[in-house]
């Protein structure tokens, strides 16, 4: 095994608890050195609305969202640092699918009683890339693919903040007969929150009445 990011050989030190099976075994695909290169968000000081780093009180953006929609109580693991920008550029930009499980040890989400709903990509992007980046990142978890996305004119990544916020709804939700009481929306990146709140509204429009929270790798 080699580190997914620096390709150096990967060695893992197991704790005694892991060896005798008291704790679930989580194998990292990144070496400790590369893990330290990506800047983590401290959940204690993150914004309670969107998970932004160093904003212990509700941030300005979230206050604006709250006037329109109920909060998603978004959580994220990493900031969009230079290193993370490179990762996304390789993974999504170049389509280097092998990186999809780089963060598998970090993305160990609670799954009991929660439907994990990925924000899937639109069919055009899927055909071009050959994979769905969000499903790739969270593929080791049992996903509930309730959402579908229709093709949009321009990808979010190429838009300015104002254009992003003005994006029209492109999600359609189909619920199973007995949906779980809670939903966790999953995406790779939370930028303005526009996509997440669209997904929330699509679920509500399909008649979902449970609790909806959201999670992303990067904020």
């Amino acid at each position, binding site marked *: 095994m080699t580190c997914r990011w620096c390709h150096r050989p990967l060695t893992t030190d197991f704790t005694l608890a892991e060896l005798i099976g008291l704790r679930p075994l989580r194998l990292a695909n990144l070496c400790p050195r590369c893990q330290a290169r990506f800047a983590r968000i401290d959940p204690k000081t993150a914004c309670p609305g969107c998970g932004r780093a160093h904003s212990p009180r509700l941030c300005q953006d979230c206050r604006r969202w709250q006037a329109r929609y109920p909060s998603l109580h978004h959580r994220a693991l990493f900031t969009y640092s230079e290193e993370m920008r490179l990762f996304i550029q390789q993974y999504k930009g170049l389509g280097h699918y092998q990186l999809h499980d780089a963060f598998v040890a970090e993305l160990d989400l609670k799954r009991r009683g929660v439907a994990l709903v990925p924000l899937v990509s639109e069919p055009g992007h899927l055909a071009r890339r050959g994979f*769905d980046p969000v499903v790739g990142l969270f593929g080791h978890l049992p996903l509930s693919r309730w959402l579908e996305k229709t093709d949009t004119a321009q990808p979010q990544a190429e838009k300015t903040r104002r254009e992003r916020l003005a994006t029209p709804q492109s999600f359609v939700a189909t619920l199973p007969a007995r949906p779980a009481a809670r939903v966790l929306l999953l995406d790779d990146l939370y930028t303005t929150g526009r996509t997440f709140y669209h997904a929330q509204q699509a679920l509500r429009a399909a008649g979902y009445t449970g609790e909806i929270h959201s999670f992303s790798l990067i904020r």
Partner: protein
Amino acid sequence: MLQVLESELARVAALSVAQPTPVPAVKNARGRLSCVRCGQTAFATLPSGARYCLSCVGMGRVTTGARLWRVPLAGVPQAGPLTWAGTLTPAQAQAAAAVQTSVAAGRDHLLWAVTGAGKTEMLFPVIADALAAGQRVAVVSPRIDVVRELAPRLSAAFAGTPMTVLYGGLPWPGENAALVVATSHQMLRFYRHFGLMIIDEVDAFPFSQTPALAYACRQATDGPTVYLSATPPTNLRRQAARGQLARSFLPRRFHQHSLPVPRILRVATAGLPGRVPQALWRCLAQARAADRRALVFVPDTRWVAPLAAAARAQGFAARGVHASDPAREATVQAFRDHTFAVLVTTSILERGVTIPRCAVIVLAAERAQFPASALVQMAGRAGRAAASPNDPVWYLAGHFTWAMAQALHEIRVMNRRGQP
């Protein structure tokens, strides 16, 4: 011809003169896939079932079923004459003539010359020949710092010749040029484009460890290749010894002085970077007392900042630089400009850097990060200027290693063979 992905076609449209021809991007020989762009066979599978080449994905993904486009360019632009006014020493002139003979006969050539022999100047005649014959010439190196050092010298020597510099982060494709100075990765974007290929520092990382780059350089040219190195890799030495590869050998620096022989000091390196051996400060003080600048090479990027800080605490004007440093170019330039006196760095500066009157210290020289070729190259940063050919070189090591023995042996052999 340029060789580009379908998604890049629009970017090169302005340079194209005829209809580009598509070729399958992946060759399938009875189930065994190989990438047409980089020649490698390691593939990863996408959920859609398609497979893509892992070796060259950094230059855009080559996927099964996709096509590469070969884009013909307009004719070779008119090249100017050699505008370099310097003269070669007799030994340099002899080596340069040998390279010219090989290239004229269409043969590959290894130019094996010690650090500071003036390799770049020896290339000028052969480049001028090829340009005069209406061919395109590529001068490539695996190291971006070497490319940045070569480019201004070549553009000064061929002032009237259209030249393009290519490396990751620069705008691409540039213009239709007769002379291309680039990192070896950029050769993946050419197909039978050059009449002469010159590969500088052919033993350097990543060229030596990445077969895709050697393949790319072969694909990019339909003429001979000239390999340059002070420490050629074993396969090239062997080919030269068997007579399969023409070779010229220059064991003497251009200023006719011998290479500085490293002095080995045994120090405690286990506590680094926290506990710094006193010998380092003594060496630096000695270098500074003789008004020399100093390069301190360390084996680990994480040592750079603490050691530069420790050197500043000792009263030296020191800074650090490493590969992923955002201020990399600026710091190296400031060091060249005498803004500060001590530069702590990793192996990124082991090659292609010429600092006159500069002492060299290799810290923890016993580490595996320093193979013999790296030790020779780092020692080769000292004594480059004719005015100060005897700059000191110190290897500070916890113990003696085979690589250090090889490096010392190689330097001594060169000095002996270069005796007038």
